[in-house]
């Protein structure tokens, strides 16, 4: 009996192990089927970018959809192909894996993509490459530069505090010593007794605060200070007229950039479609929201507002936060696409903002400062080749925006 059980158990175990081994072999075969050829990886990277896969997927870690790393271990290649091409069809066919996935991710459907098998494979090649060669170098160099910055800065803050403390202590000691000296001297003089009237008056003089305050010099100084301070405040105040830095109005829909751009890392361009092609970055139209919210969080009262808008045909009236005067022309594509300025440079840490607030003052001085200090992003841009060449002949500093007319009136005012 015991032997029989043992045999059965052993056999089962063997079978299990075999299955495991086989399946393992099978899985590795899948992974190995994903090419590691440089060119294919590059194509895949291009497609990954072009089709904005990162809107919903990370290579490592969940996003709107599952992580892509190891997908070739988890699923058959053929399955992946049909899923990418048309996931709806696969779900409707009742495929267990597909249905499971669909339910796991809040019944959010992946759009159908018109990609060939080779293209999908190249995307996986890219994913595999990223998975197997995590970008360590970049992190290293970032850490290195941080260290360098700390060294260059020199005196650390705590030393500074100690030094200031010592200085203050020394001053106090000097004052006490001086006070002591005065009182000792006065005592000596009084003890001596043979002083002239004038000298006696000086020695016996009592310090009177009120007469000090009434002295014309003090009144003069105080008046001047008050006027100067008030004047400065008024002028500073006038400068802030129309400046809405920190302006964070309540919006008709409590949209959170922290959630979308921060947590889900949805690329800014996904919603702000105009940012690389035109003057306006574009507030997304409802149909862009609906790409996801057709399925996601459909019960939320905030999302319901989107449906209401769709139904009524009334567009959503967002409160405009960044207001430039009509007389100033600003073009997003010049800065984002040509200059490759990060959105955060002007809009602040938008991915941290639950409610968007105006980060920059958006004053002309602010624009000009940036134009003075920013190097032209001329690398690889044929437009700038000759200008850079010409500039380098006569100057050692890199070409700034100001050097090619970035401070001229008619660059923004016309």
């Amino acid at each position, binding site marked *: 009996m015991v032997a029989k059980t043992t045999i059965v158990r052993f056999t089962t175990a063997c079978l299990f192990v075999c299955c495991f081994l086989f399946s393992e072999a099978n899985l590795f075969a899948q992974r190995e089927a994903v090419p590691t050829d440089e060119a294919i990886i590059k194509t895949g990277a291009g497609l990954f970018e072009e089709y904005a896969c990162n809107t919903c997927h990370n290579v490592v870690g969940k996003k709107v959809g599952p992580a892509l790393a190891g997908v070739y271990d988890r699923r058959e290649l053929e399955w992946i192909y049909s899923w990418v091409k048309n996931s709806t069809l696969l779900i409707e066919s009742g495929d267990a894996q597909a249905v499971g996935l669909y339910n796991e991710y809040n019944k959010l459907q992946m759009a159908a993509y018109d990609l060939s098998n080779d293209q999908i494979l190249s995307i996986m090649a890219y994913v595999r490459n990223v998975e197997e060669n995590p970008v360590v170098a970049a992190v290293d160099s970032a850490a290195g530069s941080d260290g360098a910055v700390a060294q260059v800065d020199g005196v650390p803050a705590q030393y500074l505090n100690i030094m200031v403390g010592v200085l203050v202590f020394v001053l106090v000691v000097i004052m006490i010593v001086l006070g002591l000296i005065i009182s000792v001297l006065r005592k000596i003089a009084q003890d001596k007794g043979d002083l002239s009237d004038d000298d006696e008056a000086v020695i016996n003089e009592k310090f009177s605060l009120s007469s000090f305050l009434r002295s014309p010099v003090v009144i003069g100084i105080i008046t001047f200070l008050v006027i100067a301070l008030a004047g400065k405040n008024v002028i500073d105040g006038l400068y802030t007229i129309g400046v809405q830095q920190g302006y964070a109005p309540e919006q008709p829909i409590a949209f959170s950039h922290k959630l979308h751009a921060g947590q889900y890392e949805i690329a800014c361009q996904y919603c702000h479609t105009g940012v690389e092609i035109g003057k306006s970055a*574009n507030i997304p*139209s409802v149909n*862009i929201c609906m790409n996801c919210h057709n399925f996601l969080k459909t019960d939320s009262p905030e999302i319901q507002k989107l449906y209401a808008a769709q139904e009524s045909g009334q567009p959503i009236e967002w409160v405009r936060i960044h207001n430039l005067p*009509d007389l100033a022309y600003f073009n997003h594509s010049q800065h984002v696409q040509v200059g490759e300025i990060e959105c955060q440079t002007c809009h602040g840490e938008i991915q941290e903002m639950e409610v968007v607030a105006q980060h920059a003052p958006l004053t002309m001085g602010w624009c000009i400062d940036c134009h003075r200090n920013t190097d032209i992003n001329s690398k690889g*841009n044929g437009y700038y080749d000759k200008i850079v060449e010409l500039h380098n002949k006569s100057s050692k500093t890199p070409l700034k925006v100001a050097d090619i007319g970035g401070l001229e009136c008619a660059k923004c005012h*016309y």
Partner: protein
Amino acid sequence: MKENQKTYWKGIEQLTNDSEFVKKNESEFPEYLPVTDQEGNSNRRDFLKLMGFGIAAVSLAACETPIRKAIPYLNKPVDVDPSVPNYYASTYVNGGDAVSIVVKTREGRPIKIEGNKYSTIGQGGTNAQVEASVLSLYDKERLAGPTKDGADADWETVDKEIAAQLNDITAKGGQIRIVSQSVLSPTTKRAVGEFASKFPTAQHVTYDAASAYGISEAHRRSFGEAMVPSYDFSKAHTIVSIGADFLGTWISPIQFSKQYSKTRKINEHHREMSRHFHFESNLSLTGSNADYRTPIKPSQAGPLVAAIYNGIAAKAGQAKVSGGASVEHASQAINELWATRGKSLVVSGSNDPMVQVLINGINSMLGNYGATIDANAPVHYRQGNDQAMSNLVKEMNGGAISAVIFFNCNPIYDSAEGVALSAAVSKVGLTISTSDRLDETASVVKYVAPDHHYLEQWNDAELREGHYSLLQPTISPIFKTRQAPESFLKWAGQDVEYYTYLQNNWRENFFGKQSDTSTFQTFWDKALYDGVFETGGSNRDLSFDAAAANAAATSIAQNYKVSGGGFELSLYQKIGLGDGSQANNPWLQEMSDPITKATWDNYLTMSIADANEMGITLKEGETQLVDLTVGGTTVKVPTLVQPGQANGTLGMAVGYGRTKAGRVADGLGVNAYPMMTKLNGASFMDVFAGVSVTATGESYRIAQTQTHQTYMGRENVIQESTLQEYKKDASAGRWHPKVYQEGKYLKPSKITLWKGHEYSNHHWAMSIDMNSCTGCSACTVACQAENNVPVVGKEEVLNRREMAWIRIDRYYSAANPAGSKKELEDAAENPEVTFQPMMCQHCNNAPCETVCPVAATTHSSEGLNQMTYNRCIGTRYCANNCPYKVRRFNWFKYHDNTQFDMNSSMNNDLGKMVLNPDVTVRARGVMEKCTMCVQRIQSGKLAAKREDRRPVDGEINVACASACPSDAITFGDLNDENSRISQLLQIEKKEDGEGATERVVNEERAYHVLEEINVNPNVWYMTKIRNKQKTEA
């Protein structure tokens, strides 16, 4: 120093050296400026009070930040990205005028019209009317929907009632007529055809406000087929025009300007140009461009044509015709025509078929058919049959017509039958109009079923045989209008969307005519993208019927009799307003006429001699009203003394005197259409007899922009020569100023306080060929549309406050150096004319920049003179210091101001849709001027940067240059060696670090206006070269 000895004057005042004029001319702005109406009683305390209040108000206002909304699309259309313009190929169609265009739209609304370069007809050119038509789209006085008896109705009711009545009429055998101007659309014609097959008594009657019936009838008589052939001026070495204003208003002026300008371009490799003889009564745009112009009376035109016929016949060994009376330059013209036969062209603007028969004969004898005239590809712009129109009015009056549909036309206003027609309309049971507004005709009909504006519709147009151009909507219909052919189909019982109907027609009739594409969708997409589709004309075998010529000559001898004492009247169309259909367009109303420089009016032009005799003077627009009697009807009109007007003749423009066009146009000028006569069945623009003028003594002011910007006696602004001289020396006519310093004469540029500029990136510059510029003023309207230039109205033009950034300076000159006043007056009988487009010259040493106290006008690193409105405080020092007087000041707030209602592009929500969102609407109290379309430069540069490349020459173009139908304006980057402008000016390659002021221009015709003051502009002008013998003094 003064090599050019001609004397130039800009107007009669300057010619007569009127003392008042001279005094007023000292200042740019006249002294009678009524800026404040109230008495100037304010004192210092009031000022302080106001200022105190002002500061308080400003700070209070500043506390509250207004909430601004950002409203995105609900569902963003795929092709529309806010702030990114889209361009659609379409076709401008207005009556019989049509040209292929490209429409610039922003956020789904058209804002600017450009020419379509793919069109072999328009070749990318436009004119003032085409440019302005985008504003007509946003005319709030268009009908918002169908009307019945003048009251608003809905389509359902209107359709039902009309269909019922039409069926009823057909059942009873009543006659139905559709009246229209020339219809160019083959698909619309098909719809009209289907309408006529449903209602068999329906007939289509076509007329044209500017009729060319004479030409088509003459071709019927002399060749057997009624048609208006294609003309090709570009192949003509000798051009003779008898009253045909082919550069301005005759048949297809944009096309002709393109062709003509090709014969006027000269450079060191090509030193030949066409010679142009012109015979006319009024000084027209074309006449002013002619090499030899002879003023004739209208009644001399017929005999002159006969004389030319006989002259050519004698040389060709053909039979002469009877009659004929020659005029000055006619025999020379005959000789040169014969010498260049096969490369010559004779045209006449006359609508008398008999005159045109002789013209056909002349061109036949010269062998011009098949060379400069293509009868195998007739044009469709003018299909009107004046005879049929007269018959229709007679039938209507006789009660023989039961229903009439006025299809996009206004014949009560603009046909020769207008008066008779307005009486006849009441005798027709069912009257329908498809006009866009309740105009003179639509207001007397029962139903108005308004058609879409051409920018709102799908359609096609066959400009000439085998040359098709598509219309596509660039905006969804603003009002509840419906495409007229769709209405016709609807009434005929066919419920079809016109777009589908159009596509079907193209699939059935045009798809098969090509072999490039195999699927209809590809074919359609390509045609739509290109805007044009050509199959070519069809061969015809024509032979001239000499018998027709004899009959014509007999008729001419009878009809053309020079009357003794009385005046003869010649009606004409103005370049701006044309036939008056776009009269409610303020851009056209304020466009100053290229010749008279008058705005907002029509008037009676009169020769100086006749004016002197009548005691009429023209001083600063101050003139007299006269009673003009034509055929028994008297109207009161102002007179305008016009150099070059033939003695004993009067000229008057049609297109004015509208009563129901809208608030801008109504009441301006006098309607001259009723003065039209009939000759040999054709509507005739000339009146030979029965014209009399009596002075009333009442004074009147015509708003002219003419003498506003004088050059204070610095007369070498225009530099010109003759072809003969030019062939010997390319710098003929050039004036090289020298400045005296320490015993030496130096070039002005050698003595300078300026440090100069170095342009390392771009160096924008412009060149204007005065030899090609015809003065047509398309550029001025294009600039107005592109740059949001306001319209200021007649009063303000009188105050010399018009805002145009680019103006056309028109100078008269005498062929021979004139000394005495008498000689000048003789010369003024028939002066030479030169046009000079004048705008900010973007001086490298700019006098305006140095005097601005707030640095609101500064110089850019790309050679532009920048104007910063938000910095300007309105001292006007810059305008005062500008030698070219091209800076314009905003005396008033022209936007959102009921006092400037006529400035409709800025004063109502609909009109504002035409504004260019990339250009600021300027506030009161700031200076403005040409920016060289800096917004286009910036966006062109950005497009290049985004594609990692340098801008391609031609990709960035200014609005004026892009509109120009004669390619007179060239814009580009001097730092780009291969740019057209560098080539044209033959700029020497720039060394690194070389200043802009040291650029060497090797083209000898190029000069700077006012070179002697060394402001070193970035705009060059090319000398005017006339192809005429230099007459010795």
